[in-house]
């Protein structure tokens, strides 16, 4: 572990040769049983999201008001919800929403955070100072409060929820990439490229970004999980996604009003959220081990 900076992530990743690197990482990743379990869950959820129309036995918003809150049965394997909708179908379709929220929110944080982080790390100076103070400011406001204020300002709905969660994740990405860039900036191959007259943009795209991808990917994986949780929290506060869209957090949050009468309304969406977050965490851990050979056990 490198002790020259405060961040505990692995900054001094060896610069791999292009070829064979991916295969090596994959080999290490594959050997990690936990990571593979995580990946299997993840693949199941992704296939839910992609093929929801074929997997879900019912229309997720089709109500059956005469059969509300039915316990699991042969017709409805996970039962029906507070409006008689098939919970399994809603979870399958909900996977699409949760995956979208996770991917887009993290995408926003990834792009914005990386851009800011690269600028800070590569150029340094006043710009770095200003941006980092801004990041400090954002970090000193708890994410959930930031989310609530942003959604309050922009209005509820899927799009604004994703923006809010994305923004509150920016600082973390920015810090990680800044640290990596700072250590890369002084490395010989970057210096060499600069001496050869390469433009900044070229150096950044060609040398800097590819070499600090590892910690970013790990962070992104874990953040997808936490975004899904953040989205659920927003639903709890009543600032989530517009009904009747089947979203796990909203299902869980609505279901809590029926916690005693029909616990299955919360159990299954709750388990779905847990499975997704769990999978992302396991994969994140696996990637960390695979990308950082020093930790290879």
């Amino acid at each position, binding site marked *: 572990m490198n002790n020259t900076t405060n961040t505990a992530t692995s900054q001094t990743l060896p610069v791999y040769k292009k070829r064979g690197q991916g295969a090596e990482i994959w080999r290490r990743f594959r050997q990690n049983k936990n990571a593979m379990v995580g990946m299997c869950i993840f693949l199941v959820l992704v296939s839910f999201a992609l093929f929801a129309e074929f997997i879900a036995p019912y229309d997720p918003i089709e109500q059956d008001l005469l059969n509300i809150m039915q316990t699991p049965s042969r017709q409805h394997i996970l039962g029906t919800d507070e409006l008689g909708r098939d919970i399994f179908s809603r979870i399958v379709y909900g996977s699409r929403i949760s995956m979208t929220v996770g991917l887009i929110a993290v995408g926003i944080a990834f792009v914005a955070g990386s851009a800011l982080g690269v600028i800070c790390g590569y150029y340094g100076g006043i710009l770095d100072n200003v941006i980092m103070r801004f990041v400090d400011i954002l970090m000193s406001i708890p994410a959930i409060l930031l989310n609530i*204020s942003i959604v309050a*300002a922009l209005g509820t709905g899927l799009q604004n929820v994703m923006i809010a969660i994305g923004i509150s994740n920016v600082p973390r990405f920015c810090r990680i990439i800044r640290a990596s860039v700072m250590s890369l900036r002084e490395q010989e191959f970057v210096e060499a490229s600069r001496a050869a007259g390469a433009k900044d943009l070229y150096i950044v795209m060609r040398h800097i970004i590819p070499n600090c991808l590892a910690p970013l990917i790990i962070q992104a994986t874990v953040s997808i999980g936490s975004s899904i*949780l953040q989205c659920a929290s927003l639903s709890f506060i009543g600032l989530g996604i517009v009904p009747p869209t089947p979203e796990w957090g909203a299902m869980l949050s609505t279901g809590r009003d029926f916690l*005693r009468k029909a616990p299955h309304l919360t159990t299954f969406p709750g388990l779905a959220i847990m499975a997704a977050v769990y999978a992302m965490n396991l994969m994140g851990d696996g990637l960390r081990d695979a990308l950082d050979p020093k930790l290879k056990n």
Partner: protein
Amino acid sequence: MIKYILRRILMMIPVMLGVTIIVFTMMYITPGDPAEIILEDGATPEAVAELREEMGLDDPYLVRYFRFVSDLLHGDLGTCYAIGQPVFDRLVQTFPNTMKLAALAVLVSTTLGLLMGIISAAKQYSVFDNVAMALAMMGNAMPNFWQGLLLMLLFSLWLGWLPASGFSSFKHMILPAVTMGTSSAAIIARMTRSSMLEVIRADYISTARAKGQVEYRVILRHALKNALIPVVTIIGIQFGRQLGGAVLTESIFAIPGVGKMMVDAIKARNFPVVQGGVLMIALSLSIVNLLVDILYAYIDPRIKSQYK
């Protein structure tokens, strides 16, 4: 070292100023009128206009911002729109509760995390390792509000061991602290485990082993100490996360804390409380981060030399 600390404290000033600008601006652009909310059903257009005038809500952005900052510099955080109490008093009432809760939650997560991490590392690849890590991660993956309700059902209703809500005694704090603590035990456990594993393979551990020291002593004396460094940082970050996590937990367990107060205040456009509360949280987070860095230097003297 002292100089470093002073500089860090000075650095907090622009950050806090930035926090006020951001919070103030966000509240400014957010639709919804505090006057309408205060008036409830009595909100006729004339009454709203009159109250807005009285509250100074019609003044331009900059006028309002500078009024807020100048009051702040005079030590006045303003008055809560909802119950007419000075914001400072409200913070004095609520903040200690949230701090207690967050501190207890950190204690829970650190205890659980360290224990699971150490044993997992010592018994790497054993059944315990896998089970402990899986459990820790479950705690992390479970939405807080759901977990809180389930714990309440189990321990308050079915077992009758702990009170379901409120914050008047230590007993009341256990369930919320566990709810919050378990969500971050996994991160600490993972961190402890991997940094312990790294240390265990290091040369001086082999030396210690070779000298015939008992296994647990090796782990405790040599491995843990060095492994603690990254863990301390994580604990600092956890504290910040707990302050955020308190928001939902406080709602579920009816705890009069800052988090619940803030959510209510944002919803009611209770600007003074939002501003005061965020400022207070931001300040305490910065202080915790500073303390973590100092602690860090204390644990690892090598780092101390960098603090100039």
